[in-house]
């Protein structure tokens, strides 16, 4: 069976006046129908660029290589016209900032309807009726009245639900969600995630959710891809990855999340930070990209960037010293 969405050896680079920036370096993953894949990482690790690259929406200074297959068809080769048929219908996207992702001058009903009229050829009144159904689907109360309202009359959570309604209007095969809950209150986050998960069950949509919030990952994801400096450093099923993290970076991410359910003796329940920042790659790395921040780093790590290999059943990590052990903790965290 062919995967719903398959990204293979994706590279994105920016050629700017200040030099080249390698934003995404050889990222591969696949999503099956009805599956939720989460791209995780710190700011600047290339996760959003990966999502934008799928839709061919990179800024003009970016260049992309690699293959992106939608149900087996390579969409990197499509021209703008063919891409336009895919955007919003087969692959749609939810953005991070609900306050600015709706046009302030149109009613939400009009904005949802616009997508339907374009892709499904619905009439104005059909589109309006369908917009009401969709608002109902994302649990907006009094959808019949709300459909006539403008974005400024809605709260951030409601707007994000409107965005989701818009994104699923044409029953897309793949829904890309770029930090869909980051700008929302925690209670609203849970609601929005619930809605996304329900929709994904009902419609069989494959979801790629970009986030830095491991709570969100635990909540919705089936598979996780951990990214660092444009590289995939670990990938696997969500339960395995949380229970048995292989890459020290994943370990660090997990250690920096408050988890009242897990009392870790060696840290005295302190949150562990990862020292340093994500580097900006200007040339292909000659060592492990994480080595400067890694507690396990030693000479073999500095030879070359390790390949992604299966380190435990179904789990892949790009690390010379994989494994969940916390043998050597860096000094900083004990202070």
């Amino acid at each position, binding site marked *: 069976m062919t995967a719903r969405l398959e990204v293979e050896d994706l590279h994105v680079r920016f050629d700017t006046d200040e030099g080249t920036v390698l934003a995404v370096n050889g990222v591969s993953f696949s999503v099956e129908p009805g599956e939720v894949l989460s791209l995780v990482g710190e700011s600047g690790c290339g996760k959003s660029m990966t999502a934008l690259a799928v*839709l061919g*929406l990179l800024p*003009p200074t970016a260049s992309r290589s690699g293959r992106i297959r939608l149900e087996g068809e390579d969409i990197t080769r499509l021209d703008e016209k063919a891409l*336009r*048929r*895919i*955007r*919003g*219908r087969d692959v*749609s*996207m939810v*953005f*991070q*900032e609900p306050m*600015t*992702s*709706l*046009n*302030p*001058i149109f009613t939400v009903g009009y904005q949802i309807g*616009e*997508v339907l009229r*374009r*892709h499904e050829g619905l009439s104005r009144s059909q589109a309006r009726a369908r917009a009401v159904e969709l608002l109902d689907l994302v649990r907006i109360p009094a959808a019949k*009245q709300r459909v006539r*309202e*403008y974005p*400024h*009359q809605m709260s951030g959570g409601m707007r994000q639900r409107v*965005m989701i309604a*818009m994104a699923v209007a044409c029953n897309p095969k793949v829904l890309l969600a770029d930090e869909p809950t980051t700008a929302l209150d925690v209670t609203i986050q849970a609601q929005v995630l619930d809605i996304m998960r329900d929709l994904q069950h009902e419609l069989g949509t494959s979801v790629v959710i970009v986030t830095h919030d491991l709570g969100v990952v635990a909540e919705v994801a089936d598979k996780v891809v951990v990214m660092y400096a444009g590289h995939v450093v670990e990938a696997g099923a969500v339960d395995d990855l949380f229970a048995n993290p292989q890459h020290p970076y994943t370990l660090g991410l997990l250690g920096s999340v408050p988890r009242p359910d897990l009392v870790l003796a060696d840290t005295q329940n302190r949150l562990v930070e990862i020292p340093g920042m994500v580097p900006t790659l200007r040339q292909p790395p000659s060592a492990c990209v994480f080595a400067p921040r890694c507690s396990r780093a030693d000479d073999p790590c500095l030879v070359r960037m390790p390949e992604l290999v299966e380190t435990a059943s179904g789990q892949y990590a790009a690390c010379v010293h994989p494994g969940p052990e916390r043998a050597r903790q860096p000094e900083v965290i004990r202070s």
Partner: protein
Amino acid sequence: MTAIAAESQPRVARRGRMRRRFTRRPPAVVGLAGVVIVVFIALFAPLIAPYDASASNYNDILLAPGSPGHLLGTDDLGRDLLSRLLVGTRASLTAGVLATVLALVVAVPIGMVAGYFRGWIDLVVSRATDVVLSFPFLILAVGLAAILGPSLVNAAIALAIGQVPIFVRIARGEVLGLREEEYVQAAVVNAAPTRVILFRHMLPNILGPLVVQVTVGIPAAIIGAAVLSFLGLGVQPPTPAWGTMLSEAQQYVSQAPWFAVFPGLAIALTTLSFNLFGDGLRDVLDVRMGS
């Protein structure tokens, strides 16, 4: 209950709020009143005017204001000054509005395309804008009007060309900012064709600054039109225009100062009205979408 009613009629409520914000500024209201009066005069000038504006009467030349039958006096050909002033409103206002609207229609798509696509097209448009802007507005207008030949429409075209770069810059700058908004991105994701994104999604969102510039551009063009007709490059006699009247009055400034004062006053008051109105409008529209 009232809160719910207000909630369900947000557009009305917002419009009311804007109107209040406008009416709380006396200069703006005075400006609006002036604009309304000027437009009214322009529309109904021949009906209001006591005499035929072009009818000369050599028995009553250069009568002083307050002369019987001639409230503002007469000009060097014995024509009623009040009538000429009223009818002259038409030429001045037409030139001002036509020039500005023409500039708006031509410039906005150019500016929007430049701001949206960036790259070489933006470079070409921006540099061309700089070149045109490097000429003083009036010098450029005079030069162009001289090339095009004297007529009201040509004067308006000349003045429009002078204004085009200003509108291009505004449209470009606004679009440049808007294209980074996520709802524009969202429209791209939802496969909206570029022309739909530009003119349906973006244009209404940049109207505010454009409208304000229109209210600034019209008085500038009115002055420009007066200058052109003063130089004989605008409306041709005997059709009255404020600038033409000024140039006719020039030779008689010592004997009949009022002859020059009244058209000058008309120009000054009209431009002042538009500018006050524009200022008020900017204050109202500048408060972006925030509720």
